[in-house]
C-alpha cells in the first residue's frame, strides 16, 4: 500500500460507507461520545426524548410527532458519528495494508556484533553468527543482516554495506533508492525491501514505535490527540452548549409563570421532545459533529501529499508559520548550476564561441557540461554532434588541470586544435603556455560574473581565449510567484545557502525571497531560528543532513526528508516521503486550510441559530393569547410561514441533522483556499460561511417544511 495510492481511496466507496455506518452505531456508546461534549448533550437529549416518548405512549398512545422528532434526534447523533467514522475509515484502510507489510517478518540477528563485523564476514559464515528471530522480538541496539530480497525488519541505520532498496511501501515511489553506511543516506525503514546487495543494520527504534507503526497509528487516528486550537474550540463549544442548556432548562419556569398568571395553562408546547429539539437546534451541533472529522482529514490530506506528521499539533503549527527557512539548492534553484549565457571575447563571433564551448562539453557528462550543450543548441541551433563523429580526443576534467575539453584533429590537415574550458586561472595558464594572452575584456567579464554570483567558465582554443560561459544558479520556474503568495499570507521566506553573501544576495533578489543566510553553518541556522522565535515568530524549516537535526528540532515545524539521516528524521516533527524541499509550502497551506475549515464551520454553525429561533419559538408560543380562529401574537415571528408548530419544529431538527451529512465532504476536503491576505480571506469566508450560515437554514427549513406537508407527515 503506498501513500500515493491513498488518492485512489474513494470517499464514497460502498465498503467504506458500510463500515462507517456500522461504526456510527458503535460510537453511540456514551463512554466514547463523552469526549465530544456537544454530541454527548444531543445523545442525552435523544435519550430523554425517547423516555418522554415511551412515557407518553403508555399514557396517551398518540405519538406521531414525538416519534419523528425523537428519531431525528438519534439521526443527528448518528450522522455526527458517521462523519467521524468515514474520516477514520479512510485511514483504517490505509493502515490495514501498511500493517501487512510488517507482519510475520523474519530478522537475521547478528549474535555478537563487533566494530570489525562487516558484510563480507557475515556472508562467509552466515550460519555461525546469525540467528533467525521474529521481527517483533528485535530490541533497540540489535544488529541485523539483510540480504537481497529481504524485507528490513525495523527502522535502523546502515552500519556496513550498500544496497538498493525498494521503499514504495512507504513512499509510493517505485524507483529504488540507495542506502549505504555513513553519510546522509544511512537510514532505512522497517517494511521496505532490499532489491540487491547486503547490509548490516543497527536497529534504532523499539518495536511498536517504528516508522510504520507510527504511520499506522497516525492514519488510524489512534494517537491523534486534540490540538491546541481544537481544545480551545471544544471549550468554547461546550460552554455555549451549557449556556443554551441552561436557557432551555429554565424556559419552562418562565413559560409556566406566564401561562399561570394569564390563565392559559397548557397552551405553550413544553413536552420533552420539543424542549430537546430547541436545545439541539441551538447548540453548535454542526461544528461539534464535524470537528474530529476535520482534524483527521487534515492528517489524511497531508498524507496524500506524502508527508507524515508526528502529531496534529504540528499541522496546526504549520498554519501559523511566519518564517520559512528554505535551502537554496533544490528548493529555490534547480539542483545544479547551468549555462545561462555566452560572452564572447572581442573579435570572436558569439556563435563560434558557442560552437567551441559545445564541442568542449560533448563528452562532459556533468550537469554543467550538458547545460552548455543545451544552451548552444537553444541559442544558435547548434546540434549536438556525436562524440565519435568529431574524431576528437576528449580530455576529462582533472583536479590538477582544472580544465576539460577536446583535442580536434583538423580534417583538412594542419595539426590539432585544442579546445579547453575551465576556471579563469586554469585557462590563463593554458593560454599563457601557448604564448597567448587573455584579453582584458574576458577578465572583466569573469569578474562581473563572479560579482553577480555566477560561475565563470572561460573557453579557449589554443592560444586564444574565446570568451566566457556564465554558469548560473537557475531559479526554479514559478518560485517567485509562490514566494509572493506566501508574502501575501504574511509569511517571510529566508534562503539558506553556503554561498558567499554576494552570490546569495544576487540569487535572493532573483528568487524574491525576503532574506537570506549566506555561508550558512548549522550554528547560524539554529541562531537564526532562535532569534526569530524570540521575536514571537513561528519558524518552519526543511532539512536532511545530520547537521540539520538541531535546527529541525528547534524549529516549530521541522520537516525532515525521507532520504535524510535518522538523526534528521527523529528531530523533525514531519517527514516528507518525497524528499521534496518545496513541500514545505504545501504543508503550510494544508495547515492553514485545516484551521480555516474549522473556523468557517464554527461560524456557520453559530450563525445557523438565528433562523432556528424563528422556526421553533413561534411554534412553542403561538398558543399564548390564541383564540380558536386566530393564532397568538407570537405567530408574527413565524416569518418562514411554516405550516404548523409540529412541522416547524420537525423541519428545524431535520435541517440540523441533514446539514451535518451535507457538510461531510466539505469537512473532509477542506474549504477552498487561495493564498491571499488575511483581510481578503476573512471577507470571503465571512461572506460564504457567516452570511451563508444566516440565510441557508431559512431556505432549508422552509423547503423541508414544504416536503413534510406534501408527504403528509405534519
Amino acid at each position, binding site marked *: 500500500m503506498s501513500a500515493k495510492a491513498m488518492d485512489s481511496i474513494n470517499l464514497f466507496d460502498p465498503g467504506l460507507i458500510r463500515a462507517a455506518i456500522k461504526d456510527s452505531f458503535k460510537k453511540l456508546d456514551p463512554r466514547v461520545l463523552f469526549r465530544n461534549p456537544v454530541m454527548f448533550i444531543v445523545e442525552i437529549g435523544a435519550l430523554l426524548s425517547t423516555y418522554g416518548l415511551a412515557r407518553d405512549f403508555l399514557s396517551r398512545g398518540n405519538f406521531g410527532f414525538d416519534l419523528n422528532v425523537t428519531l431525528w434526534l438519534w439521526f443527528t447523533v448518528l450522522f455526527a458519528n458517521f462523519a467521524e467514522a468515514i474520516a477514520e475509515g479512510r485511514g483504517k484502510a490505509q493502515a490495514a495494508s501498511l500493517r501487512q507489510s510488517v507482519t510475520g517478518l523474519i530478522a537475521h540477528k547478528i549474535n555478537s556484533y563487533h566494530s570489525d563485523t562487516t558484510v563480507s564476514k557475515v556472508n562467509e559464515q552466515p550460519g555461525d553468527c546469525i540467528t533467525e528471530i521474529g521481527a517483533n522480538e528485535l530490541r533497540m541496539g540489535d544488529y541485523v543482516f539483510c540480504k537481497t530480497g529481504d524485507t528490513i525488519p525495523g527502522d535502523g541505520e546502515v552500519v556496513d554495506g550498500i544496497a538498493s532498496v525498494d521503499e514504495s511501501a512507504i513512499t509510493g515511489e517505485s524507483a529504488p533508492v540507495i542506502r549505504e553506511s555513513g553519510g546522509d543516506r544511512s537510514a532505512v525503514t522497517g517494511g521496505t525491501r532490499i532489491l540487491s546487495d547486503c547490509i548490516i543494520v543497527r536497529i534504532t527504534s523499539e518495536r511498536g514505535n517504528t516508522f510504520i507503526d507510527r504511520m499506522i497509528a497516525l492514519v488510524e487516528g489512534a494517537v491523534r490527540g486534540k490540538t*491546541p*486550537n481544537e481544545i*480551545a*474550540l471544544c*471549550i*468554547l463549544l461546550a*460552554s*455555549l452548549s451549557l*449556556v*443554551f442548556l*441552561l*436557557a*432551555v432548562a*429554565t*424556559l419552562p*419556569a*418562565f413559560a409556566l*409563570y*406566564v401561562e399561570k*398568571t*394569564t390563565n392559559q395553562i397548557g397552551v*405553550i408546547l413544553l413536552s420533552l421532545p420539543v424542549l430537546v429539539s430547541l436545545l439541539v437546534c441551538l447548540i453548535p451541533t454542526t461544528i461539534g459533529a464535524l470537528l474530529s472529522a476535520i482534524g483527521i482529514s487534515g492528517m489524511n490530506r497531508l498524507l496524500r501529499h506524502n508527508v507524515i506528521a508526528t502529531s496534529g499539533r504540528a499541522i*496546526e503549527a504549520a*498554519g*501559523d508559520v*511566519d518564517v520559512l527557512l528554505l535551502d537554496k539548492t533544490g528548493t529555490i534553484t534547480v539542483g545544479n548550476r547551468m549555462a545561462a549565457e555566452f560572452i564572447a571575447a572581442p573579435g570572436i563571433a558569439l556563435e563560434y564561441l558557442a560552437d567551441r564551448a559545445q564541442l568542449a562539453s560533448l563528452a562532459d557528462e556533468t550537469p554543467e557540461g550538458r547545460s552548455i550543450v543545451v544552451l548552444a543548441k537553444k541559442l544558435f541551433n547548434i546540434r549536438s554532434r556525436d562524440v565519435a563523429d568529431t574524431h576528437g580526443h576528449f580530455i576529462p576534467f582533472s583536479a590538477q588541470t582544472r580544465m576539460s575539453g577536446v583535442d580536434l584533429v583538423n580534417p583538412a590537415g594542419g595539426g590539432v586544435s585544442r579546445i579547453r574550458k575551465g576556471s579563469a586561472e586554469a585557462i590563463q595558464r593554458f593560454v599563457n603556455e601557448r604564448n597567448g594572452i587573455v584579453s582584458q575584456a574576458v577578465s572583466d567579464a569573469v569578474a562581473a560574473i563572479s560579482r553577480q554570483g555566477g560561475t565563470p567558465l572561460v573557453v579557449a582554443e589554443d592560444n586564444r581565449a574565446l570568451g566566457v560561459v556564465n554558469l548560473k544558479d537557475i531559479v526554479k520556474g514559478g518560485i517567485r510567484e509562490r514566494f509572493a503568495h506566501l*508574502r*501575501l*499570507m*504574511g*509569511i517571510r521566506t529566508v534562503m539558506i545557502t553556503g554561498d558567499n553573501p554576494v552570490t546569495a544576495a544576487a540569487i535572493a533578489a532573483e528568487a524574491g525571497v525576503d532574506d537570506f543566510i549566506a555561508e550558512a553553518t548549522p550554528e547560524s541556522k539554529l541562531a537564526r531560528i532562535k532569534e526569530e522565535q524570540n*521575536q*514571537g*515568530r513561528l519558524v518552519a524549516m526543511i532539512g536532511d543532513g545530520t547537521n540539520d537535526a538541531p535546527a529541525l528540532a528547534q524549529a516549530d515545524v521541522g520537516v525532515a526528508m525521507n532520504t535524510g539521516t535518522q538523526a534528521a528524521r527523529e528531530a523533525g516533527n514531519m517527514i516528507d516521503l518525497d524528499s521534496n524541499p518545496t513541500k514545505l509550502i504545501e504543508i503550510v497551506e494544508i495547515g492553514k486550510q485545516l*484551521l*480555516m475549515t474549522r*473556523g468557517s464551520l*464554527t*461560524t456557520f454553525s*453559530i*450563525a445557523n*441559530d*438565528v433562523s432556528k429561533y424563528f422556526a421553533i*419559538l413561534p411554534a*412553542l*408560543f403561538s398558543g*399564548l*393569547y390564541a383564540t380558536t380562529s386566530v393564532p397568538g*401574537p*407570537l405567530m408574527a*415571528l413565524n416569518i418562514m410561514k411554516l405550516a404548523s408548530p409540529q412541522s416547524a419544529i420537525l423541519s428545524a431538527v431535520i435541517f440540523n441533522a441533514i446539514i451535518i451529512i451535507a457538510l461531510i465532504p466539505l469537512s473532509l476536503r477542506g474549504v477552498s483556499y487561495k493564498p491571499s*491576505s*488575511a*483581510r481578503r*480571506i*476573512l*471577507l470571503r469566508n*465571512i461572506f460564504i*460561511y*457567516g452570511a451563508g450560515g444566516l440565510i441557508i437554514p431559512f431556505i432549508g427549513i422552509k423547503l423541508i417544511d414544504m416536503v413534510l406537508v406534501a408527504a403528509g407527515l405534519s
Partner: protein
Amino acid sequence: MESNELLQIVLFVGLLCVSTPLLGWYIARLYDESKPLRLPVLHEIEQGIYRICGIDPSEPMNWKTYAWTVILISGVGVAAAFLLQTLQHRLPLNPQHFNGVDFFLAFNTAVSFVTNTNWQAYSGETTMAYFTQMAALCVQNFLSAATAIAVVAALARGFSRKSSRSIGNFWSDSTKAVVYILLPLSIVFAFILVQQGSPQTFKPYAKATTMEGTEQIIPLGPAASQIAIKQLGTNGGGFFNANSAHPFENPTPLSNFLEILAIFLIPAALAWAFGTMVGSTRHGWVLFGAMMVLFLAGLSVSLIGENGYNPVLNVNAPMEGKELRFGTAGSALFATATTAASCGAVNCMHESLSPLSHLVTIANMMTGEVIFGGVGSGLYGMVLYAIMTVFIAGLMVGRTPEYLGKKIDAFDVKMSVIGILGSSVILMITAAIAISVKAGTSSLSAQGPLGLNEIIYAFASVSNNNGSAFGGLNANTVFYNVITAFAMLFGRFTTLFAVLAMAGSLAAKKIKPASEGTFPTDGFLFLFLLIGTVVIVGALNFFPVLSIGPVLEHLLMISGKGL
C-alpha cells in the same frame, strides 16, 4: 419626534466623539508605562496617599496578587459600608434621626455599592443618614469605579507587556483613577449640578406649607456631590428614591443632557485609551464604534417605541411615568444610556416605557453591559467579546487566532467564556428560582408578560451590575435582598477575575508582530463581527424568554389587546 429632540441626540453623539479622544488621551497618558502623566497638585495628593497608606506603587503584582488585592479592598468596602449603615443612629450627620439600617437591607446595599451595581432596595430620603450617604455609599461609588478602571489598566498591560509575570500594581492603578480621573471630573460636575439647582447641604429636611395649606417635608442633603459620581462612575445609586427623575437630582433639561453624557464619558474614553495603551488607537476606535452602533440601534428601537401609537391607551407617545421637563426623547435617551452603560440611574419609571423600550433596556443589560458599559467593566467586557470574536472568526484566516499581538489559547478562551457567560448563567438561574417560588412572585406588581419583565429586568440588572430598577418590584424583602446580593457579587467578580486571569496569561506571552496574515482587528469588518458576536453569543440565549416577555407585550399592544 421633534427636531430639537433629534438635535439633542446628534449633539450627544457629537460631543461624545470629541470627548472620547481627549479624555482617552489623558487616561492613556496617565497609565503610560514609560512616561506617566504628572500633574502638579494631583501628583502631590497621589504621593501623599501612598505615604499615608504605606504603599509602594512600583511593587509589581502578578494577576493573583492583583486579584486578591481587589478582593481585599472589596471585602473591606462591604464590611465598612455595612457597619456604617447599621450603626448610623450612633454616627453624626443624621438630622432626621434615622435608625440603623436593617441587617439584610444593609448587606444588600453594601454589596450593591461595592460591586458598582447600586441596586437600591431602599429609599434614600427615608433610610439613609447624610453621613451614611457620604461615607458609606459615595466612597464606594468612587472605589468601585476606580477598581474597574484599574483592571482595564492591568488588562492593557497584559497586551503591551511581553514575557512578564506582573500586570501592574493595583494600589497605584486605583489611586490614580480616583485622584486623576474621578475626583476632578466629579468636582466639576457637582458644581454644575449645584448651579442647575441640586442641593448640597447638611441642613435637615425643609418644611413647607403647600397651597392647599398642608405641610410638606422636602428632603435635602449633600446630593450634588453624590449625583456627580453616580453618573460619572456609572454607579447609578440615587440620593433620593426617584433617582434622576427627582427635580433635585436632575433639575433641568441641561442637567439631564449632561447626566446622560456623564454616563458615557469615561467608558467611551476608556475604549480609546485601551486601544492606545495596547498600541492600536484604531482598534480603540473600533471598540468605540461597535459600542456606538449597538447603542444607536437600541436607541432607535426605543425611540420608535416611545413615539409610537399605543392602540390600547389610544395615545401617541404616552407620557405616563415620564418627566415633562425631559420629554420622550430625553427619557428614551436616558433609559437606553443608563442600561447600555451599567449606570442604573433613571430619569423615568422604566415600567412605564413602551414594550419596545422594555426590550431594549433588558437586552442592553443582558449583553453583559458592554455597550459602553460600566466604567472599566464595560470595556473589559467588550474586550472579552473581542477575544471570542477573534477566536471564532480568526480561525477563518487560517492561523491560530491572535488579538493585538497575543496568541489566544485555550486558557484565554476559557476565561472569556467565563467572563461573558458567567453573568448570563447567574441571571438565568436566579430569575428562574425567583419566578418559581412564592417569595419571588409575591413581590411582583404585574402579571403575565409584564410580570415576567419585572423579574427578568431585576435579575438582568443585578447580575450584570447595572442596578437600575424596572419599578413595580418590591425588592426590600429578605428573599430579594439575599438573592440579588448573591447575583451582584457573582456577576461582578466572575468577570473581573476572568479578566485578571487572562491579563496574567497574556502578559506572560510573547508579542507576535503583525503581518499580512494577521487577523485584522482595526477595521469595519471586525467592528461588525464584534457586534455580531455580542448579539448572537451575548443576547441570543435570552431570545426565548424575551419573546414571551417584552416581545409578546409589544405584539399584544399593537394588536390592541393589552395585557
